[in-house]
């Protein structure tokens, strides 16, 4: 038998040691834990939350931020609403730039009254400067309001409305309690 055609025990041990040792490198493949936000940065999430809290302010029931609007938008921008990502990017940047220019503060740092006033301007479409051309402020506000409502009143599986808070607010039971129609005791 020609021993040169075989792998020697020494070679095998060496290669196996290398292989097993290399497994240690696999730990590097383990993905770092993603940030809580998938599509929105931490700053974006703060801004969306602040706007959501003015669109749906808290009373006896949770406001927009507490009731998952940020989570919903973040989750959907990473899913079905991926097509709105650039609009959000542009709109959120425009809100921050405009507020810094006008008030020397970010939107989140403004008083609720000033925030409301700014959002009313967005809604009416009177903002025209900078990025707010061609009625973008109105479009962006309507999109944000629409998504906030979807989050607030929609199913928790889409990211918002944890524990069906808005259902409870409206007196709607979920899951509905309805039995069969057949049996009577």
């Amino acid at each position, binding site marked *: 038998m020609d021993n040169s055609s075989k792998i020697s025990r020494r070679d095998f041990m060496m290669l196996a040691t290398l292989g097993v040792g290399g497994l240690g490198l696999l730990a590097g493949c383990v*993905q770092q834990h993603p940030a809580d936000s998938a599509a929105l940065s931490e700053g974006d999430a703060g801004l969306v939350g602040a706007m959501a809290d003015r669109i749906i302010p808290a009373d006896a029931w949770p406001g927009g931020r507490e009731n998952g609007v940020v989570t919903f938008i973040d989750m959907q921008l990473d899913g079905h609403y991926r097509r709105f990502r650039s609009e959000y990017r542009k709109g959120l940047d425009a809100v921050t730039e405009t507020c810094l220019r006008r008030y020397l503060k970010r939107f989140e740092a403004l008083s609720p009254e000033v925030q409301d006033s700014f959002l009313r301007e967005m809604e009416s479409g009177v903002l025209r400067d900078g990025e707010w051309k061609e009625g973008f402020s109105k479009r962006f506000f309507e999109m944000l309001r629409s998504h906030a409502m979807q989050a607030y009143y929609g199913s928790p599986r889409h990211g918002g409305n944890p524990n069906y808070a808005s259902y409870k607010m409206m007196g709607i039971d979920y899951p509905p309690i309805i*039995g069969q129609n057949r*049996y009577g005791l």
Partner: protein
Amino acid sequence: MKKVPTFLRALTVVMILLVVACCGFYFYWNEASARSSCESCHEIENSSIMWARSGHRDLPCKECHGTALSSGLHSLQEKGMMFVHHFTGTGPRQITLNERQVLELTENCRRCHGAEYARWISGGHSATYAAIFLNDKHNAGEQLNADCLRCHGMFFGGAIEDLVTPVSTKGPWQLKVAGQSDLPAIPCLACHEVHREGSPAVRAGYDDPAKIFYYRRGSPSNVQWYDRYEKIHIRVEALPLLKPREGTRELKVSDDPRQQVCVQCHAPNAFHQAGTGDDRTPRGVHEGLSCLACHDGHSNDSRWSCVNCHPAISNCGLDVTKMNTTFAASGSPHNIHFVRCIDCHTKGIPPKHGSRLQRADGTHSK
């Protein structure tokens, strides 16, 4: 002997390395903490976070979910596809167990919770798909529909049309999925979320036995409701409270939150009239009692519960188990869920006596 070509030798080395690497990775994955293995997939992260706060947090994932090889090639293929979906970005944000995995998990529940499993298998909630969906009497009386799966077969992956044929009130009916007939339609996870918040059981401190009660920590209810449509478990505290009516009168109901899971399936009609549909809300002499005051949570048995409130030596001096109710005989007109004093005392409720003698037929002397 003929010399083996170099590329074959290289291939052999590569194959050996691959096998060693795979085996090493497999053992590493199974032994590593969840934080550095399962949880590193963001699809599992939420479940893992919940598990870390649960009473099962001392158990590694594989104790309940098994390993990549637990179900042979099937699970290997499934895990492989998880990798594919993960890296191609085509997977869901949050993965859920399919029915097969839920049932495998049920068998693993049994390893530690044998007594509960034994009670479940002996009760009505261990009914199989065949028992539920091939019941001629039931299917002829109510059209099979999507909502059947809300309470039976809640983990079934398809629609009612994928399960039974024909979907009508005229049989004969048969299941469309091979091997489905003997599977339990209401497994453990129907009412339990294994990752629910809780603490592992610990031995009580005996330094001051009299105070053990006061040191005992309250824990959230251990039952939750699995919502097939949302594919999530809902905590009992978040489930709606049934306020059934008897005519126009609102009944008193127990404040036991666990009952809110029961009424999800044992529910009245849309008008919430007590006694309609599958409603079993106690009325009459038992109004206000929780389902679980009488029924065992796993076997549903109520055989031994009467004595909790009606001991043989009681104020009333009656052996209620022998009275003319459906507890003693299924043909009795006095259903234990809504029997009233007036049902027997048709001429009015007599005043209380110090002692009354019970006759052999369950009635008692006045």
